[in-house]
């Protein structure tokens, strides 16, 4: 539709899709890094994947700044501009939490007790699935090919499941006779992991509100 009139908007659109691609890249690298960590512990492969996650997060940041600059050049209606800027700023916490979690594990040399590994693996898998569903939802907002509503239910389910696992693991952790310092460290990791699906849930509601707002 008269695309020549909306050159700046098309550039913003391309940048946003590129941002979602980097978000997906950060998610995949984080999932692989956690898989390696829970299987092999702190190793070079884990550190390499943590570094790759950090790079994807930085690239996503760069793209977000580019989108912000274009928005300040007055692309789109003020209402759409506010929605997109606010949403991207909130979404940026997702690659941030991936990067921070891996950094925390490496920096504090966290060792997850053997009896919790299976449940932690499940927690990571369900959380990553929630983020993947959110990416789909976000892409749907900008393409209209995907209905954003069913994805909210999926993300909501995953978030509840993660909460359930977290409570279970927490109870097992504090019932166990392991060193109290190791308990605190593992607890911090659990809280960070649970934050991922919480964040995906909050963001999916935000995307839903933006899509509903556009209806007359």
């Amino acid at each position: 539709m008269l695309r020549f009139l909306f050159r700046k908007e098309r550039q913003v659109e391309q940048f946003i899709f590129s941002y979602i691609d980097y978000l997906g890249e950060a998610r995949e690298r984080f999932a692989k890094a956690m898989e390696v960590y829970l299987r092999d512990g702190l190793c070079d492969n884990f550190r390499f994947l943590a570094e790759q996650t950090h790079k994807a997060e930085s690239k996503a940041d760069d793209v977000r700044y580019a989108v912000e600059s274009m928005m300040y050049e007055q692309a789109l209606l003020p209402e759409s501009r506010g929605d997109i800027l606010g949403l991207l700023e909130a979404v940026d916490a997702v690659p941030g939490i991936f990067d921070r979690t891996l950094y925390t594990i490496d920096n504090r040399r966290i060792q997850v007790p053997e009896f919790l590994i299976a449940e932690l693996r499940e927690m990571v898998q369900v959380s990553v699935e929630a983020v993947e569903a959110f990416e789909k939802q976000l892409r749907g907002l900008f393409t209209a090919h995907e209905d954003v509503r069913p994805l909210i239910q999926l993300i909501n389910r995953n978030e509840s499941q993660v909460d359930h696992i977290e409570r279970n693991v927490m109870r097992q952790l504090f019932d166990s006779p392991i060193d109290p310092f190791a308990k605190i460290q593992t607890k911090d990791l659990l809280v960070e992991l649970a934050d991922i699906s919480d964040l995906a849930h909050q963001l999916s509601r935000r995307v839903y509100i933006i899509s509903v707002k556009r209806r007359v």
Partner: protein
Amino acid sequence: MWLLGGVFLGWSLGQNDAANVIGSAVATRMLRFRTAILLAAVFVVLGAVLEGRPGIETYSRLTHLTLGDAVVVTVGAALSVTLLSLFGLPSSSSQATVGSILAVGLLKGQCNLAGFTKVAMCWVGTPLGGAIIAMGLYLVLGVVYNRLRWNLFQSDAALRLGLLLAGAYGAYALGANNVANVMGVFAGAGVIDVPTAALAGGASMALGILTCNRRVIETVGRGLVRLNPYGAFVVLLAQAITVHIYTQLGVPVSTSQAVIGAILGVGAVRGINTVRPRMLLHIVVGWVLTPVLGGVMALLVHVARHLRYVP
């Protein structure tokens, strides 16, 4: 030289009403300010030339005016609009002009009361018409808009384009409808023929638009878009349609009152209170104070015109 009163009125009308038609397109950066005023100026002249005739003929039939009377009417109307603006009160050129014509007509004992009644009824019908058309458009276009299932970028692009097109249509309707305020009395007095009156009136309104204040345009436009972009589009379109309908009836009306009606209509459909005291003041001043002041100013100009120096 005698036409200068009309040109002055056209210039102030163009300056005052430009914000109603292009404000949204400028505020949303759909158009640069210069492009927007140029576009509006072109459409105002087009509207005046292509569809200005019925309004001009209505004013010609309200009373029989001489060239001197025509000058009294336009200067009286222009002074009352300027005075109201100086006191920060909303003004309407249509209502000031009709008040001035009525005063001069009464003075001469020549008044087409049926014509004045038709005009006054249309004034009441302007905000009402704006509200009804806005409600209808909001609901009908809303169904289409929702079914299209556009993504954020598509709906944004469509709304910005809609604001631009509705603005251009609004400028066209403004020119077609309000040109009678500016030059109608001169055509009625037989000073110029109707096509020349339409061209001169359109050109003076275009001059007003081309010299209008950018900040006023942006402030009014932002206020409209804050309604929500779809609501702003409906308000602009409803205002243009309302004014265009009255153009077909040959009655010049206030574009600001059509906008107010449309805003109230959109508010009613959305279930929100868009009534502001300033809007109601605008309508009351437009219906009562402006024509009365227009009449008083025309009488004063008439008296001043007949003053003679006696040594």
